[in-house]
């Protein structure tokens, strides 16, 4: 895979210098806008996952690249924290976190897909979702070595299922790739990165930010909890909407798998993973809530953008 298209002055300077064989330089620019900042950040994170064919692997740890990444991350984290209002969860912890997530009210893309969306809208949604689903569960995997014993074992119990229980045919990212191919879409990684709105880049960048910083391990797990706890019922609606529009069985099967898998994963994420983390490190509870809020809020922002676009059309 090659670097994506630049979206402004900063990402253009970054991608030019990443591609060149001379020293990395010229990165002291302000981003043009959110699109510019988030495509730059997304690409710098991607150096830590699969990388790019047109970028030397050494540049993953280039100090100038890391300096820019850190500058954009600080701005992004400050923005995410400014959107969040600290809350004290009800006791016991698991019921408190489930209630916090359930009380969050936002627009539902799954409800739109279930009843109203047309085929083009659903294919657009799948293209956007492919940025995350083709590396599903990878960002939270960064958190594993940063956890104490009990939450580490618990997270691996969940991740083992996400990664197919050792069977590559059942790995969730692979199931989504099969669904894309059957739907006539491209399944190579990030084929649609140039088409996605900034909200999708933010969703993905938040997970990498939380995963790659030990300091933010609790936000990473809180994000996971909110993601899993808002997946089962919407996945059922997605599956019904895809069936209504006669999309291929492989894509429907991906969502049906998530109805059942995430009914398990939400219990694990809230009880055995986040529950064990705050039992071991009680001061991290606020960051668990911050991570959960960020997941819900960024999903709302994406959903609102798409619903506004589709209604306007």
């Amino acid at each position, binding site marked *: 895979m090659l670097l994506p298209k630049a979206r402004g002055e900063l990402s253009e300077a970054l991608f030019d210098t990443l591609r060149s064989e001379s020293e990395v330089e010229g990165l002291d620019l302000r981003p043009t806008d959110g699109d510019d900042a988030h495509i730059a950040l997304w690409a710098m994170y991607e150096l830590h996952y699969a990388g790019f064919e047109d970028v030397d692997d050494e540049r993953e740890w280039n100090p100038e690249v890391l300096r820019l990444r850190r500058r954009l991350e600080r701005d992004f984290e400050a923005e995410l924290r400014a959107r969040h209002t600290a809350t004290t969860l009800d006791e016991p912890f698991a019921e408190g976190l489930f209630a916090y997530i359930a009380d969050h009210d936002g627009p539902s893309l799954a409800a739109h897909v279930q009843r109203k969306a047309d085929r083009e809208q659903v294919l657009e949604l799948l293209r956007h979702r492919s940025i995350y689903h083709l590396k599903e569960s990878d960002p939270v995997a960064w958190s594993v070595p940063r956890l104490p014993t*009990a939450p580490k074992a618990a997270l691996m119990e969940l991740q083992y*299922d996400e990664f197919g229980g050792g069977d590559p045919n059942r790995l969730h990212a692979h199931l989504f790739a099969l669904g894309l191919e059957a739907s006539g879409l491209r399944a190579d990684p990030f084929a649609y990165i140039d088409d996605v709105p900034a909200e999708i880049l933010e969703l993905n960048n938040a997970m990498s930010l939380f995963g790659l910083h030990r300091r933010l391990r609790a936000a990473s797990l809180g994000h996971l909890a909110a993601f899993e706890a808002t997946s089962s019922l919407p996945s059922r609606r997605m599956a019904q909407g895809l069936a209504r529009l006669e999309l291929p069985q492989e894509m429907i099967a991906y969502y049906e798998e998530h109805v059942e898998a995430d009914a*398990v994963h939400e*219990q*694990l994420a809230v009880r055995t993973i986040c529950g064990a983390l705050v039992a*071991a490190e009680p001061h991290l509870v606020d960051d668990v809530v911050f991570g959960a809020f960020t997941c819900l809020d960024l999903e709302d922002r994406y959903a609102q953008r798409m619903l506004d676009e589709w209604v306007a059309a």
Partner: protein
Amino acid sequence: MTPEHGFEHPDVIICPGGPLLLRGDHVVEDADGVAHETVRPVSAVCRCGKSADQPWCDGTHKVLAARDRP
């Protein structure tokens, strides 16, 4: 820090208001007598009776009134 008697790691977990979690491989017979094999490291068995995916949990308990949850 290790707890005095090791970590709790039960085979079965009853989730308040939610499913029953089963660790490991099991065969679960549903209300109609049909046997279902578990396929994942941990499985969630419906306790509210309203799941559309019996005998497994599909999250439906979350939309029930508190008095109707298990």
